[in-house]
């Protein structure tokens, strides 16, 4: 499969200012005082590696979220945007974002679950044209899914 011919300026579509900002100044970077759920995300193909921490209360509301790790601009920005997004959401709503983001990156705008407004997360859309980078953008989201599921099913980043 031949990657379509892109011009250099298209790179701006991948590395939008919002992405670069979140990559350089990741929000919620570090550990939490209280962690109820966590998961590691590893992208074996490129070496990106991060750990996501959640503090979920008894009503299944994500009170706090944070992450640690190292990765490329795309994976760090995506993790940073994730934490910004999910704080305050119920775990069900957070999973709706998981569905929406992964669908967006798979080029499937319909999503496969509850409709959500992606908001800032639309900045990740440029990654779609870079198939090798889609896994970077979804890494944190797979960690989210694993973390939320961890009481019931074994963690998996696939």
């Amino acid at each position, binding site marked *: *499969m*031949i*990657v379509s011919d892109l011009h250099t300026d298209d790179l701006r579509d991948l590395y939008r200012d919002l992405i670069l900002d979140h990559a350089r100044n990741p929000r919620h970077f570090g550990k939490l005082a209280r962690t109820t759920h966590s998961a590691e995300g*590893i992208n*074996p*193909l*490129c070496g990106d590696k991060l750990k996501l921490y959640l503090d979920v209360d008894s009503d299944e509301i994500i009170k706090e979220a944070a992450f640690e790790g190292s990765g490329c601009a795309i994976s760090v920005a995506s993790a940073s945007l994730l934490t910004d997004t999910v704080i305050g959401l119920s775990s069900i709503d957070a999973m709706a974002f998981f569905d929406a983001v992964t669908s967006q990156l798979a080029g499937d705008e319909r999503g496969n679950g509850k409709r959500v407004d992606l908001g800032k997360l639309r900045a990740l859309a440029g990654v779609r044209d870079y*198939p*090798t980078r889609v896994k970077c953008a979804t890494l944190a989201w797979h960690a989210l899914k694993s973390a939320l599921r961890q009481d019931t099913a074994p963690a998996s980043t*696939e």
Partner: protein
Amino acid sequence: MTQARQLNAGQTAVAACRSDFPALDQDVNGHHLVYLDSAASAQQPSAVIDAMTRYESHDHANVHRGVHTLSHRATDAYEGARETLRGFINAASTREIVFTSGTTESINLVAQSFCRPNLGPGDKVLITHLEHHANIVPWQLVCEQTGAELLVAPINDKGEIVLDALYALMNDEVRLLAIAHVSNALGTINPIKDIIAEAHAQDIPVLVDGAQGVPHMQVDVSDLDCDFYAFSGHKMFGPTGTGVLYGKEALLDAMPPYKGGGDMILEVSFSGTTFNELPYKFEAGTPNISGVIGLGAAARYLEKIGMQQIESWECELSEYMTQRLSGIEDIRLIGTAAHKAGVQSFLLGDIHPHDLGTILDHQGVAIRTGHHCAMPVMEYFGVPGTARASLALYNNFDDIDRLVEALEKAKEIFA
């Protein structure tokens, strides 16, 4: 005889595929080549050769770890072939498709990673008397390494496994049954589905040596319910240096890696190493990328023709071959199972197979002679070797007529 034959549309379509194989379109020793040695290694259609050439000329780079375009194309093509092979044998997941260098490596992998850590004195590995050396020696080695014992189920004089005797050998000391789908020396098609069910009833996992299965019939590992299925690319019209080990995910998951190196790890440090997920755990180092792409093209080629059409065509050919060969005076057919693939071993009078091979080659007819890597079979039939004609989808009735003519000539020379 050939002309009069009634072929159905599917058979006619298969017969037309011969022209896809460039190697078949040549003269050898002044005669148009008749290739009857596909059980040793099959010829490749242009679709396979071209897929590899195209890859090597335009898309090559190392797989899995590159962000650049060629690496991405190479990875896509390589992993695409994995999905093709998964579908080809109907495995549940690509995690169950491990690429190897061939059947031999697939079997050694199971011997060393599945068996070796779990075998000890008192344990048994069960095989049969009709196995290829590739399905004997790895078990001899691992038995020697662990003190386990190798049990061998007998065959009868048609070249069939004696099922009662096989079943009688199954008990709770048997850690694995390893058995050929089709015998390369005798052509016997073993009733592996029944055998697998019988083994599973006693909790014995089963490895099927499918080297001679996949090229000639529809193989469905989910339906067979085998635990491992091993096969080679070069016998299914793909390139040498490629093969597959299918293994049930739960079994592969529990096995330690076979080789160490790049790609099979998640993390390496001197304090310890974390292995990668399936199937990469078993694919250490740079894989045979172009070969696997060729193998994928071979599977697609076969799917396009249709394995059932192929099977039906080869069945016609095989019956014709048996009939024509049986008509030769002084011939001794070795391997006369009721359920047989297009492989026929034979001896002609007191002519040594090796001499027969030369005389046939002289007439442009390529057969294999010798022990066919199945010495125990030769020993069973009390022969030093046989001549063997083996069919593939590209053979036709003329090929068989040419074989028979050439054998008559051999008799003249040795008269």
